[in-house]
């Protein structure tokens, strides 16, 4: 692996509560190159917060600390908010879960995609429009001119997510974080959207952090997998080597995935007690 794009060491996210601070992400470390890195875990495992803290988008009262959070030679936790904004969207961006909620309901698709460009460069208006239409085409939208002027409630979930991808990839960032990008979509369009992300990632030589609760999906789609449980990385392995997983949590997760040729009468439930201390 060449020089990593992003280095994370001992990342922690803390929230104050009535009974003292609670640590939700507890010392996560990893490095990301030009590869597809999957982060898997059940809900509440801290995987989404890990993604958001890379962009410094954990809102108060949450508090992020790390020994190292380096991207392109910059310490992401030390730079000013202004510098951080130069990175957000332009160098690192994020595709979120549900286009129903993550697209602004009163702005047209074109406006929203174009905004990313407008924020990060001084392109003339007409050129922005041109680039947006090209990008819409790149995410395989057939009538870009028409979709340009549509509002989010006027399009399907799959189309919305493609617009989301277009919006996040148009400034050609180095890293894309995809936080459950297909969970809110119909099964029929999930594959298409994944393929699209994959194509664009490989074409531009970007790094991808793919966050999901779906172990199977991640193992098919990613090069490398991190498994998170209760704020910690409990397992790291190459996607192909999934079956050789050692950690009981992941073995438990794997065992509870239904198979096409299912022979078991009942799916096993994760027994957390057995390895809670592991």
């Amino acid at each position, binding site marked *: 692996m060449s020089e990593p794009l992003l280095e994370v060491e001992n990342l922690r996210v803390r929230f104050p509560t009535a009974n003292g601070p609670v640590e939700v992400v507890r010392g996560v470390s990893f490095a990301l190159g030009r590869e597809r890195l999957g982060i898997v875990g059940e809900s509440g495992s801290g995987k989404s917060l890990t993604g958001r803290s890379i962009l410094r988008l954990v809102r108060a009262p949450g508090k992020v600390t790390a020994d190292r959070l380096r991207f392109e030679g910059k310490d992401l936790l030390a730079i000013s908010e202004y510098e951080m904004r130069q990175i*957000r969207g*332009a160098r690192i961006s994020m595709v979120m879960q549900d286009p129903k*909620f993550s*697209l602004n309901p009163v702005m047209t698709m074109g406006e929203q995609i174009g905004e990313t460009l407008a924020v990060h460069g001084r392109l003339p208006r007409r050129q922005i429009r041109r680039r947006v239409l090209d990008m819409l085409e790149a995410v395989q939208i057939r009538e870009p001119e028409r979709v340009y002027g549509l509002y989010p409630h006027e399009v399907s979930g799959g189309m919305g997510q493609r617009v989301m991808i277009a*919006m996040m990839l148009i400034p050609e960032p180095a890293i894309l974080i995809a936080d459950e990008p297909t969970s809110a979509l119909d099964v029929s369009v999930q594959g298409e959207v994944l393929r699209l992300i994959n194509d664009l990632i490989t074409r531009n030589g970007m790094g991808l952090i793919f966050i999901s609760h779906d172990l199977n999906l991640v193992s098919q789609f990613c090069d490398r997998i991190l498994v998170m449980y209760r704020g910690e990385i409990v397992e790291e392995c190459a996607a192909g080597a999934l079956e050789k997983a050692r950690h009981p949590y992941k073995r438990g997760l794997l065992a509870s995935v239904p198979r096409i040729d299912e022979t078991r009468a009942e799916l096993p439930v994760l027994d957390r007690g057995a390895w809670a201390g592991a």
Partner: protein
Amino acid sequence: MTTAFTFLGLLAITFFIGRVVPIDPVLAVVGDRAPQAVYERVREEMGLDRPLFVQFFSYVGDVLSGNFGMSVTTQRPVLDDLMQVFPATLEMATLGIIIGVALGVPMGVIAASRQGSLTDQAIRVVGLLGYSMPAFWLGLVGLLVFYARLQWVAGPGRIDIFYDGLIPTATGLMLVDSLVAGDLDVFWNAVSHIVLPASILGFFSLAYIARMTRSFMLNQLGQEYVTTARVKGVSERAVIWRHAFRPIRVPLITVVGLSYAGLLEGSVMIETVFSWPGIGNYLTAALFNADMNAVLGATLVIGAVFIVINKVSDALYRVLDPRAQ
């Protein structure tokens, strides 16, 4: 349809109030020494012997044809009186709402974007003060401080007697009329008269508008698409105004409509304190003189304007929100 129903309800209420009055309208006409026969005849002439619902229908008919009866005090048709005083109220309430929106909306947005901060708390207290101050009292204190002591503004009334009647009445709005006539002396005099009562009215609408803006904004700032905007690297200022504020412009129109209607109501008290010759002053004067036709007429007009503003802001909401089409 529902609007018509609401109007009918308003008419029913004013009709009902008119019947509850302990004053016998027949006695008021014939005097209490009139013989029984005269009393009966007048009662019949006035239609008071007919069943209640028939009376109600003829009342609705009267109102719809613009017949609100005669005012005992002014000896003129109530409708003419109302038409004459209404512009003064409209002028003050409109200036009030402009002040309220211009200050209240930014205050609400700032409070929401700094939730929990000292600024937020301060704006909250200012807002709650608007809910806790009697308008008439604030008017009196305002007159005491700004007119009597500091002499920054002119006193009660719409204009100094010296300037009264100098300019022709075109719209009935003093500020507009004086500008149309090109008489700046009159204009500035009118401004110095209206600025205090309008600011006080504006303060009350500000309280409501700032509060609603704040809660709308808090709701928006928690939305996922606001995070999307941040992910794109949009500056915090643009996040707030372009992304979070834009979706609430439409519901804010309803809020502004409601508080505008509320100002027409609030002007009753303010007008009494400032001797402002508007519909509120007319209403309270009629109350003192037990001039029931005038009271009900003014109630009806204020109620109708109130309902219309409510419905219009509702309709605007549906037209302007891209999601509602």
